[in-house]
């Protein structure tokens, strides 16, 4: 299988190189109109077919690696280092991305898959797709070069082949780890497609904004994958790392967040280009930056430039990525300088207070957040270079700098949709903002009334202060969004005589993009409320002997026993805890500590009891060597469940936004004509 996999990778490289060269030559011949022996259209089609064949070759290589994992082929170094015989089947798949070589192969395979779909749908716009396909082939050539020459996944083990492998990193032996990395990679790799379309459209001076419409679905789906991947990573960190949190501002977490921020900025500002022909250069650079940031993320993960808890995937391929990023940046700058006259805006903004300017400010804040994170991530390197002194840039820095920026962004989330296009009047501001402002202050008053205030243990707490601001702004934003729904649904209700719920459904169907966007914003608000809950986390750590009790919040945890278990993969120690509330037994929790045989590494399995109001989170930290008693740490983490609920709403909103709107004509067929009120203005449908 190793020979088959290696051969498949070489074939894939040859096909990608042909796709790139033949595609570029064909497009050049078409652009210049030079006569050639072979028709440029036919040459371009052979390039496209080479791309499809390349996908099949990479699929063969990926299959070979998976097959080798399942057949325990420890003659392959990668399999020996990342798998073992007792590894459960689901985690054998995880072995594909647990190490550098495998994850690069996964990247190449996903890129091949995206390219495959793109090349099959080329009839949408043959020339634009030919440009995009050729650019994707260029990216694929890079990854296949790395796979063939710098990080070969099928390298053979030197020496006597061991009977069993080293096993998978225990941190990765968790169900979410079977989904989280592929999701994240689908997001990372997916941004190659809008990048290829943007660069291709710029190279060919594509007329109009059709390329944006073509890539919209690609961009949104990619964004959804990246979002889901980030949240799954947060949940994994929460459930596995055992420190009670979900986001530690680790450089690799930051690396996934940066392209998300620029990608989100692009999804907003691209609407300006579609609607008004504005911000063309800005959008092109946003998508270029997003793609470059995905490469930077991979560089940070793989090259070990910064210290991170994701150290399991560090290596020396950083130089390859730096050179490739340099080439990509040079190509982007060169193309932009050459074709910038094509990107002149058709309109300009007319007012500081308008929908257009809110989009611009939204972009500004998102990019500032991205800069803050990039700056914080790279500052240790910069500091070492400038003053020879490496520093740590951790959570306290980001909490101080990024949280106010995030709150401002949340504020804009509510304000933006309330502003009309072009300009606005004081009267309209008063009309649209009165309810949100009331909701904001009502929330502040309620917070103080129920004892949530910025003072903690007699001192002013920045965390609690920010949490109250988050709750208040979230309430205002939610009110603003719901009032938008109600206003539109009210018009439809008056027109059709349907109730408000049905009218809201009709309203959403008529403009899925707009109202899907609002649902996404609701999801974001719910997530923010969940994040704000972290300001009120509490924890207790205690040695627990038999029938000892630990008190946390309204709960009493009583230790009723300890036990041990063992299987082929790991040994485990459990603590069995009965949980009481108001003297009544509620449920039992069994936090666990495992030691994996193959790697001899320990791993925590946290016990979590989740309620809408809080999570009871219990960690078996280990045994005190002096007393032989287990140490239990319990956390009461308010509102964490809201984060995951927010993600579900966010995903739902994205699906709604992806569904095509029904036209008003179609919609009108669904409502009884006799009920229509002709005096009401028809609500705009479509985009």
């Amino acid at each position, binding site marked *: 299988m190793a020979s088959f996999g290696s051969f498949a990778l070489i074939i894939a490289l040859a096909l990608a190189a042909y796709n790139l060269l033949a595609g570029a030559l064909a497009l050049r011949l078409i652009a210049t109109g030079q006569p050639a022996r072979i028709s440029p259209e036919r040459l371009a089609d052979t390039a496209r077919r080479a791309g499809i064949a390349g996908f099949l070759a990479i699929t063969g290589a990926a299959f070979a690696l998976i097959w080798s994992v399942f057949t325990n082929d420890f003659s392959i170094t990668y399999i020996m280092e990342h798998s073992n015989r007792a590894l459960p089947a689901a985690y054998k798949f995880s072995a594909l991305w647990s190490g550098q070589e495998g994850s690069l192969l996964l990247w190449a395979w996903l890129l091949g898959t995206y390219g495959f779909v793109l090349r099959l749908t080329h009839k949408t716009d043959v020339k634009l797709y030919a440009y995009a396909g050729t650019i994707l082939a260029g990216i694929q050539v890079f990854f296949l070069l790395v796979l063939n020459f710098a990080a070969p996944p099928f390298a053979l083990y030197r020496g006597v082949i061991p009977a069993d492998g080293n096993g998978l990193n225990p941190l990765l032996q968790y169900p979410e780890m079977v989904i989280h990395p592929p999701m994240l990679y689908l997001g990372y790799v997916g941004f190659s497609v809008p990048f290829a379309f943007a660069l291709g459209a710029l190279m060919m001076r594509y007329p109009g904004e059709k390329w944006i419409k073509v890539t919209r679905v690609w961009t949104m789906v990619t964004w959804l994958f990246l979002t889901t991947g980030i949240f799954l990573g947060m949940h994994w960190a929460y459930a596995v790392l055992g420190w009670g949190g979900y986001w530690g501002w680790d450089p690799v977490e930051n690396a996934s967040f940066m392209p998300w921020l620029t990608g989100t900025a692009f999804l907003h500002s691209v609407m300006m280009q579609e609607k008004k022909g504005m911000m063309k250069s800005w959008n092109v650079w946003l998508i270029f930056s997003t793609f470059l940031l995905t490469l930077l993320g991979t560089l940070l993960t793989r090259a070990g430039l910064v210290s991170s808890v994701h150290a399991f995937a560090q290596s020396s391929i950083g130089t390859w990525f730096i050179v490739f990023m340099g080439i990509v940046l040079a190509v982007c700058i060169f193309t932009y300088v050459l074709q910038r006259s094509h990107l002149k805006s058709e309109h*300009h903004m007319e007012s500081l207070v308008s929908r257009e300017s809110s989009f611009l400010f939204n972009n*500004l804040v998102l990019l500032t957040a991205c*800069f803050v994170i990039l700056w914080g991530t790279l500052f240790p390197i910069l500091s070492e270079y400038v003053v020879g002194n490496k520093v740590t840039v951790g959570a306290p820095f980001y909490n101080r700098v990024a949280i106010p920026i995030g709150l401002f962004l949340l504020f804009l989330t509510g304000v933006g949709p309330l502003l009309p296009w072009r300009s606005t009047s004081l009267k309209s501001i008063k009309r649209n903002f009165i309810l949100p402002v009331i909701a904001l202050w009502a929330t502040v008053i309620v917070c103080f009334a129920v004892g949530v205030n910025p003072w903690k243990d007699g001192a002013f707490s920045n965390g609690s202060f920010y949490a109250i601001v988050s709750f208040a702004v979230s309430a205002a934003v939610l009110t603003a969004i719901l009032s938008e729904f109600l206003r539109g649904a009210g*018009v439809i209700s008056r027109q059709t005589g349907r109730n408000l719920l049905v009218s809201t459904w009709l309203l959403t169907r008529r403009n899925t993009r707009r109202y899907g966007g609002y649902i996404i914003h609701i999801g974001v608000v719910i997530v923010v409320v969940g994040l704000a809950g972290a300001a009120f986390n509490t924890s207790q750590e205690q040695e627990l002997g038999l029938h000892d009790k630990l008190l946390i919040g309204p709960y009493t945890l009583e230790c009723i026993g300890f036990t041990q278990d063992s299987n082929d993969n790991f040994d485990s120690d459990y603590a069995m805890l009965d949980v009481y509330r108001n003297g009544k037994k509620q449920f039992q929790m069994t936090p666990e500590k495992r030691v994996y045989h193959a790697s001899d590494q320990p791993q925590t399995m946290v016990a979590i009891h989740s309620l809408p109001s809080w999570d009871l989170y219990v960690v078996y930290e280990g045994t005190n060597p002096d007393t032989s008693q287990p140490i239990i740490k319990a956390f009461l983490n308010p509102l964490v469940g809201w984060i995951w609920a927010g993600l579900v709403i966010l995903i739902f909103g994205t699906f709604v936004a992806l569904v095509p709107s029904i036209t008003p004509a179609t919609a009108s067929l669904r409502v009884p004509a006799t009920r229509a009120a002709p005096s009401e203005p028809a609500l705009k449908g479509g985009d």
Partner: protein
Amino acid sequence: MGAPARFTFWMRAACAPFISRTSRNEWDSKTLASQTKPPAFWIKSAEALVLAVAVCFSMGATDSGARYHDLNHRLMCTCGCAQLLGECNHVGCPSSGQELSELSADIAAGMSDEQIFSAFTAKYGATVLAAPTTHGFDLVAWIAPFAVFGAALLGTILLIRRWAGLAGAKAQTAGQTIAIDDPADIERRERIRRETGADGGF
């Protein structure tokens, strides 16, 4: 200038754009102390609000438990786990136990935050601090994000104002040369306004 005077100065500077021309002139005059007319109620209220917020932010942790928690979340565990000292959860961690007891001892000895950080830095190196300090080159880490945000915000505002000015001039020129009085044009313009207004597209 003493602290109260400095606060008053900045307070007035912050409120200046919002106050009427008359009262601003009054503030500018050097005979402020001898004025008999009190400043407007809302200016006083704004002063009180800003003062309250400033006081809130300047308050430190008074309780030693809260201070201990605050400080162990501003230091890193040095075992290589890349976690904050207060959040390192490795049983048998070779570093966190010792660091935490040193921190407790330093607090009990009455050392200031600055002294504690200096002692930790001297012993474990600069990477023991979870965030850059506010002096020397480290200060750049704190200033750069706000400087970039401020510059970008200012640039955006200026750009929009310039565009708005250009759009206004263009409309004026167009208005001088073409008079739109065709009822069909007027109706079309109204329809566009309706559709791109508060109820229109996204």
